């Protein structure tokens, strides 16, 4: 192990022991880049120099950890996914009197606002509750505000149109020169909450879980852990939506789900409960 790897290992140990935030199961290459980026912003020289301020300064830690959560993407990323959600999954969800949705690892919230818009347009919003979670309070606060740079809007508008949007994307935000503020009404049924997929437990009886482009940051073990968490958090027949380059194919939970729209990575939890086939019926 070279010094840099050693310093990162020590840093991750420190964060885990002091605050319970466990990044040890993260894919190392991108984590290393993020840590170095955080380091560059502090003006410190070596990764190990981050350990004392992280141990002794909670604000410093909060800022540092927010950096590790932020991934940047526009709204309605993968428009065809949202189209499939709208056309194939929503009709099924409409049959329930009330639906619970978990958007896991929301970062700055682009995905959860996209989802809220789909639910509104499909007449499902009023009977939905969306739990929008992330491990960083700083990042959650940003998501809650729903303010985005205008250059993000241009790309998002195109995506929205391709996703089968039924009105004008401009109806959902107020823009000034630099930023677009999303309609407060979209937030009415969103509960923003701190939850860490690595260390926290099951989250309600969900009809739908969206967790796209978060698992690519995890190693295989951690991915398996999170797939199990999702399985346990879903109702029978509940849906799980992954990112376009993510798959359940190689996980232990594979047999507990059906790939209902394989191309768009939409899976459905099987009706049978865990362990049923193991018993001699």
């Amino acid at each position: 192990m070279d010094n840099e790897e050693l310093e990162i290992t020590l840093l991750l140990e420190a964060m885990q022991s002091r605050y319970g935030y466990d990044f040890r199961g993260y894919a190392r290459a991108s984590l290393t880049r993020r840590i170095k980026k955080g380091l560059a912003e502090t003006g410190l020289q070596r990764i190990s120099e981050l350990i004392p301020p992280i141990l002794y300064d909670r604000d410093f830690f909060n800022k540092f950890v927010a950096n590790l959560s932020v991934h940047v993407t526009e709204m309605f990323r993968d428009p065809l996914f949202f189209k499939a959600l709208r056309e194939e999954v929503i009709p099924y969800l409409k049959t329930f009197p009330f639906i619970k949705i978990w958007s896991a690892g929301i970062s700055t919230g682009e995905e959860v606002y996209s989802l809220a818009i789909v639910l509104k347009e499909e007449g499902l919003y009023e009977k939905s509750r969306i739990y929008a979670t992330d491990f960083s309070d700083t990042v959650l606060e940003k998501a809650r505000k729903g303010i985005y740079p205008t250059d993000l809007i241009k790309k998002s508008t195109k995506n929205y149109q391709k996703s089968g949007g039924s009105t004008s994307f401009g109806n959902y935000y107020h823009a000034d020169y630099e930023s677009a503020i999303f309609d407060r009404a979209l937030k009415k049924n969103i509960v923003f909450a701190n939850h860490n997929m690595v260390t926290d437990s099951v989250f309600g009886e969900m009809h739908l879980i969206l967790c796209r482009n978060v698992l690519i940051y995890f190693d295989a073990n951690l991915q398996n852990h999170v797939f199990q968490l999702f399985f346990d958090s879903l109702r029978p027949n509940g849906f799980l939506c992954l990112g376009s380059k993510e798959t359940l194919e190689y996980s232990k939970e594979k047999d507990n789900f059906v790939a209902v729209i394989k191309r768009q990575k939409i899976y459905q939890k099987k009706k049978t409960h865990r362990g049923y086939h193991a018993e001699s019926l």
Partner: protein
Amino acid sequence: MQNHYEAVVIGVSAGGFRALHTLLSELPDHFTLPVMIVQHRKASAENYLVTSLNKNCRLLVKEADEKEKITSGTVYLAPGDYHLLVEKDKTLSLSIDEPVCYSRPSIDVLFETAAATYQAGLIGIILTGANSDGSAGIRSIKAGGGLTISQHPETAEADTMPLAAIATKAVDYILTLQEISPFLNDLLEQSHETKE
């Protein structure tokens, strides 16, 4: 002493479609190194570039999957709108971290992570392109003891990227597009002879 090379990384932007066809179609089926490529492009459902390269190339060309084990004789393309990274255990990973040099996938991200893993065993190549992504990556490869090549700017459809790479003074060879594949072949054969 000749290095023993383990992997090739290629960064290319504007003009890349033709450049990649020229370069990859010249690689023989016994080419033993894995090749990882960042071509700046938009995300698209139908993967025209991969299909078309596969038709014209003797090696297997595929879009990189996350956690995929890097295999020799395979050409991996970064998926649109994802960074492609090399892990220390020689697997591939993807991220949607912020764009670098306005680009996702970014050449720098691939080159820097590949340099950290392969060090002196890495060959980095910059081809045609209209921005300066890849220059920092070329520096990392050179610093790690790897070998660096730039397409000759005069033979590039867009010369900004080769010129930016050459300006780092970390480029070992400046070659025309047609010279690159034969050069890689010679290099591998020499490297095998030295090893034996």
